[in-house]
């Protein structure tokens, strides 16, 4: 055994403690007779130690919230949203049909339009709320710009309600295509990573104003209402109906002050 020539692979493996027991003594003996190589192999070991030392601190750093959320939130949301997609499958077909119809004829009965508001809001929520990296087009640090931009596109002065009092911070917003024009979409997030979205359309003029209503589309709960030409819907798939109601109430009071 001892007569086996010592290869470079043996030396590397020796440095990493990867060498089989029966070979180790032979390599150690060989190294004793070759001080230059012994020094080199020792430097490899030192290097490994230095590397571990240099990056050890990273293990003790607090994990950024967004990384824990990448698992936790996507787990909860994906599970919830699978059911939503199934449930929305039929509804989407309905919306498509209604859209074609609306191009040729005056808007259908307002009940359909209002129900369409909740369904569309649920779809928008299901599409955008699982996004971890790009949940919004414009982030909350440019809130003034965001609101101004969306207001301009929707042709009416909008507001992003402040929901801190009920535990939600604005993440930002985006512009979406609606049934007959642009839609504003605001996203909010809690400390726990749960998300709520506010869907606003400004083409509800032909519809009577309505009180607060609730619809469940798959696992996405939606509170929605119409105030003159504006239709609002607050959606979440992460939280209970009671918690969502609490958020929706806070938004409602700011958007429709008594």
């Amino acid at each position, binding site marked *: 055994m001892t007569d086996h020539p010592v290869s470079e692979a043996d030396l*590397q*493996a020796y440095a990493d403690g*990867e060498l089989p027991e029966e070979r180790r003594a032979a390599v150690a003996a060989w190294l004793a007779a070759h001080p230059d190589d012994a020094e080199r192999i020792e430097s490899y070991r030192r*290097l490994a130690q230095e590397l571990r030392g240099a990056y050890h601190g*990273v293990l003790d750093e607090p994990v950024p919230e967004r*990384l824990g959320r990448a*698992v936790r939130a*996507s787990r909860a949301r994906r599970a919830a949203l699978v059911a939503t997609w199934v449930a929305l499958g039929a509804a989407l077909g309905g919306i498509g049909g209604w859209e074609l119809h609306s191009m040729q004829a005056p808007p259908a009965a307002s009940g359909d339009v209002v129900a369409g508001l909740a369904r569309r809001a649920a779809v928008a929520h299901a599409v955008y709320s699982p996004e*971890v990296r790009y949940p919004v087009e414009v982030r909350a640090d440019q809130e003034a710009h965001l609101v101004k931009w969306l207001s301009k596109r929707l042709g009416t002065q909008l507001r992003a309600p402040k929901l801190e009092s009920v535990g939600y911070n604005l993440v930002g917003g985006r512009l979406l295509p609606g049934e007959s024009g642009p839609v504003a979409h605001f996203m909010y997030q809690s400390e726990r990573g749960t998300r709520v979205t506010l869907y606003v359309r400004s083409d509800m003029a032909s519809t009577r104003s309505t009180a607060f209503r609730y619809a469940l589309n798959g696992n996405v709960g939606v509170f929605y209402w119409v105030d003159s030409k504006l239709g609002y819907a607050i959606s979440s798939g992460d939280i209970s109906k009671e918690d969502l109601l609490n958020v929706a109430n806070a938004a409602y009071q700011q958007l429709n002050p008594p």
Partner: protein
Amino acid sequence: MNEAQRLVDLIPRLRRYARALVGDRATADDLVQDTLERAWAKLHLYRRGTDLRAWLFTVMHNVHVNRVRAARATDTLEDEMPELAQRAPQGDALLVRDLDRAITRLPAEQRAVLLLVTLEEMSYEQVARTLGIPIGTVMSRLSRAREKLRAMMLGQGAAAKLKLVK
């Protein structure tokens, strides 16, 4: 224990490896985030009872390769200097900075092997499985990486001495 919790438990190790692999903290955490999202989406492909850490590092390796490829498509980088972004300062020790800088000068495939062996203390066989390469390739890359790193560190030492003499 469920896989989601085990994924979460492995985050610090993913971050450590990513930091050494790409250098600056924000880019490293982006890599970890992409890895976790992909791992979560692909978790059904993970075979229960096998090494979750090795699987997760495989996912990270694939994500990393894709990211580097995407970055290359937009700017032309030399082979020897892949995705070398400006490194954020990483601690005060000169040694750490030098080591840190020297590692980013290694060709990407050698760097990955070296870090998995030294930082993650994976066996050669685990590294081979993680990176999807033969064990002989692991060993030759490791050997080249070490020699190159040693030469760089010696060079730096020599440069430092020259400065002092002057």
